[in-house]
């Protein structure tokens, strides 16, 4: 049971971080190869706030999110103002996650250096994590559907035209970066208080790749697609565990096939919809009604 619970928590934590990254990469078109850096900042900040300053758990997690936002501004404002975009911004983020990992590894006093911090109480329960995930994903959905989200899409698809009709691209991009950093930070905090330990390797480059993979596989300009992909990317390695080393091969193969046949991702520019369930229901109901009529006549 504990195993299932921990997988659920991993899925939720990934879901939060991926929904944030989906806004930044999927909707606003800014590649971030280092998003786990925000999870690391949020996670460490939450732990330090809780352990060293006695801030209550949930408040510490939220404050960790805000500290990630501050870091994102320090990082993003100069980069985005100078119109670094595409691969260039991706490299900035790659540098960021590496710097965070190396820096933390070398700060012994409070952050514990390369060993990290252990003995953190398990304060995020499964239900709490699920609740927070649902709330945060719901807020993200609203944001994306609002005019703010549409402006993000406009900047992604044709920045010069968006600028020409009054959208401030710098502000739009920075806003997306800040929100996604907040989501990353909170995800990191929640994870740490479940895993009970944090080390520089908890949120390193590999984790960043997982997050980006979920967004790219799930689809650009989609929220439900990346969320589903995040779930699959957490669960699939568990299912394929019996394949041992070979699972990485299947993993890679799945990537190649999806990129080959669906370059916009599984749900690019669409959302997973359950309308077909309703339609099916009505069809079946109509079918039953028809049959009843027929048998009644007969």
């Amino acid at each position, binding site marked *: 049971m504990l195993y299932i619970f921990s997988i659920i928590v991993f899925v939720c934590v990934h879901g939060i971080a991926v929904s944030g990254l989906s806004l930044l990469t999927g909707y606003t078109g800014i590649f971030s190869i280092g998003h786990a850096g925000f999870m690391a900042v949020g996670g460490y900040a939450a732990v330090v706030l809780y352990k060293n300053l006695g801030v209550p758990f949930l408040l510490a997690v939220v404050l960790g999110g805000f500290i990630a936002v501050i870091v994102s501004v320090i990082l993003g404002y100069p980069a985005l103002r100078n119109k670094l975009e595409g691969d260039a911004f991706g490299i900035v983020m790659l540098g960021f996650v590496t710097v965070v990992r190396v820096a933390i590894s070398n700060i012994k006093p409070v952050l514990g250096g390369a060993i990290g911090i252990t003995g953190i109480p398990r304060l995020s329960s499964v239900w709490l994590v699920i609740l927070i995930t649902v709330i945060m994903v719901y807020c993200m959905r609203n944001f994306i559907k609002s*005019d703010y989200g549409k402006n993000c*899409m406009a900047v992604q698809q044709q920045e010069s035209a968006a600028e020409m009709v009054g959208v401030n691209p710098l502000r739009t991009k920075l806003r997306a970066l800040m929100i996604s950093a907040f989501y990353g930070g909170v995800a990191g905090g929640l994870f740490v208080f479940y895993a009970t330990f944090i080390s520089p390797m908890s949120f390193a480059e590999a984790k960043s790749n997982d997050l980006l993979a979920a967004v790219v596989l799930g689809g650009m300009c989609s929220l439900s697609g990346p969320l589903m992909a995040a779930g699959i990317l957490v669960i699939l390695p568990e299912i394929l565990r019996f394949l041992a080393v070979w699972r990485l091969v299947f993993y890679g193969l799945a990537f190649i096939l999806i990129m080959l046949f669906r370059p916009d991702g599984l749900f690019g520019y669409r959302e997973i919809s359950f309308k077909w369930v309703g339609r099916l229901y009505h069809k079946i109901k109509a079918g039953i009604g028809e049959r009843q009529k027929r048998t009644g006549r007969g």
Partner: protein
Amino acid sequence: MDGKTALLDIDHMTIAFGGLKAVNDVSIQINKSEFVGLIGPNGAGKTTFFNSITGNVSPTGGGIVFDGHNLTKKRPDQISRLGISRTFQNIRIFPKMSVLDNVTIPMHSEPAYSMWAAMLGLSKVTRQQKETEKRALEFLSDLGLEAYKDREAGTLAYGLQRRLEIARALAASPKLLLLDEPAAGMNNDECNELAELLRRIYKNYDLTVILIEHHIEFVLKLCDRIYVLNLGQLLAEGTPEEIQSDPEVVRAYLGSRRTKQ
């Protein structure tokens, strides 16, 4: 022009890219409600001229004043909100968005509610969106695009994409509309139709228009006044009749065949 304060006053503007002067010491005044043409051979600096007005390129010398505002230090989005709107030579719609969303973007470039309200999904957000959609539909029906409102903009036919770009430019409620080769790639019938359309929106929306176009008949038919650029310099300025008979313009751009008419 004749001592009145112009809506757009470009004063001895120079734009240099390194050693190349794309626009060289050009002064142009455009009054409110004028329909002005800007013609010239390829590479004359016409689009660069537009780019400087909209803030994409900053002039290396001289000034641009629009409606009392100095534009030289302003960003494109600020200039847009002052009331300058444009279409592009190569169409730049938002290809993966619906036709309707393409037109609503200029109306909520700065949403009327906070991002917190947006995240919580407050009722004022949906109310606001309904409002902008209603207004956007008016623009679409005015340009005959209503039937396509839910189509993905990138799948529209070329001519319709051009119209959509004009609709989007109008949705930003401009005072000055810059049209960069709107008739490019169109046949004669389509040109005539577009000319009718432009004349109509020019009247209905009380616009001032600057038009770059190579279809010379199109320009002569629509414009009150024409500027001719050649190699970054102003070659001539005048009414369509004056331009047609200007020997220098004929030599540089129109070709000598026209003088025999």
